[in-house]
Every structure is written in C-alpha cells, then in structure tokens.
C-alpha cells in the first residue's frame, strides 16, 4: 500500500508517540521506514574542543543515538528502516528525504497544528502544504 514511508522524529515524547504509530503503519503496509531527524547545530562548551569539531561533536552524536535507538525499535517490530540526519529545517528535511527516497507517505505528529503555533507555523503544517506525496498527521497532543 505504502512502500516508502518517511517519519520525522526528535527526542520529544510526542515525536516518540508518532514514531511508534508510524512503525505500526509501516508494518501494516509492508513498506520501508525512513527515519528523519533534523538538528540545529549548536556550539558545545569546553575550551579543549577545536572550533572545527564543535558542530560535529555536539549534535551529530545525539542525532545518531536517537536514530539508532528508533531504528532498533523498528527492526524489533520487523520493519525495515533507513536513518537520515539533517541540519536543515525539520519540514524541509522531511520533504527532501521524501523526494529523494520517492516516498509515498510522510508521517508527522500534530504538534503545533492548533493554537498559537498554527499562526506561527509548525512542522506538520509546513509538511502538509509542501509535500509531494500523501501526509499522515497523527494526534500526539
């Protein structure tokens, strides 16, 4: 039904909830799950880390740990997955992975779809408007 499914994750509980349901969905569809996380490079403290390494040390590690944990969960459920870490804006990262992997579905949590964030913009909102494939917005809030 859906052979290539992209899911956006971060380390929030709402994203975890959306991820678990995306795994269920991929399991039902028999598709490959592309797990995407976007992170903002932020400088780490510590005088001894040379400038050129701060970026990589700080966030790539956290993103990798998150992605590996989630990929393990998918694999425990019998779902084939691939992981993607990006430094882009989260919505843009999801759409660019979806385009590259020829995805037929993007799964996101509904964080920011209601209330003030609706006006200010949110990941699901941007994804829903920009995606070139179907979008599943899961309630997590």
């Amino acid at each position, binding site marked *: 039904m859906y052979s290539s499914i992209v899911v956006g994750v971060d380390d929030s509980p709402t994203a975890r909830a959306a991820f678990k349901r995306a795994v269920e969905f991929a399991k039902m569809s028999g598709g490959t799950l592309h797990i995407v996380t976007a992170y903002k490079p932020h400088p780490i403290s510590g005088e001894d880390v040379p400038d050129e390494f701060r970026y990589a040390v700080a966030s790539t590690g956290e993103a990798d740990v998150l992605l590996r944990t989630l990929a393990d969960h998918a694999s425990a459920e019998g779902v084939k997955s691939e992981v993607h870490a990006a430094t882009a804006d989260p919505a843009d990262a999801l759409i660019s992975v979806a385009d590259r992997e020829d995805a037929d579905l993007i799964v996101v949590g509904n964080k920011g779809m209601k209330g003030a964030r609706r006006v200010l913009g949110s990941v699901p909102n941007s994804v*829903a408007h920009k995606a070139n494939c179907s979008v599943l917005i899961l309630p997590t809030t």
Partner: protein
Amino acid sequence: MFRTVVVGADDSPTAAVAVDAAIDLVEQSQGTLHVVSAYTPVSGLPSSVPDEFRGTVQPDSLVRSVLDKHTARARLRGVSVEAHDRRGAPADAVHEVADQVDADLVVVGSKGMNRRVLSSIPNSVAHQASCAVLIVKTD
C-alpha cells in the same frame, strides 16, 4: 490500525483517489468506512419551477448519487461502509461526522474537494481534527 475512518468526497476524480486510499486502510483493519459528502442548498430557484420538482433540482440529489458511487466501490472491496450527506461546508461536514462516529482517522484529498469553494478543505480539516488525518496526494 484505523478502524473507524471518515473520508470526505465529492464527484471529482481526485476525491475518488482519496476514497480508494481510505478503502485500502479499512480493508486492512476490517473496520468501517464513513463517506461524507456535503452540499449547499440552492437558493433563488425560478418561481416557474413547480414545488414538486424543487427537491430534484437541488444538489442533495447529486450528493446522494456521489455517495452511492463511492459506497459501491467500498462494497465491491468487501469493506463495511456508511454514507453521510450533510448540508453545509465540506470541512464542517467531515468534522461533524468524525465526532459523531468517534473516528480514529479522517482522510481528505490534497486538492479542494469542492472546487467552487476557495478555502482549502484539507487545510481546515488538518487543523481542526482531534484524530489522525491522512491528506492523500491527489494532484
């Protein structure tokens, strides 16, 4: 995974794509599909139209034929289906039925379901829904 699925549809080919996506999911879950179609009553019919024919020229008869067409496709796939016609705005109609049947998923096409309405139905549905929303790429 989604056992009570509501899909909004009109007579457009893109709506049929959304309905088919909804049928796929309900077929998997062995749940129930609810097809919703909304209509706006026509006002200002010429006075020459006799009362007994006014009902037949109003869009509620069109909406019923739209619903018949979509529910027939669901039944052909062996999917349990219910039809809902609602007077008013399509996005409101979808919400109303989703609340009424306690839906766990609402399915809409990515293009406006009613081409005469300027505001985007999927956008409105996505922001208001309290359950999962599948926006099916139809354009």
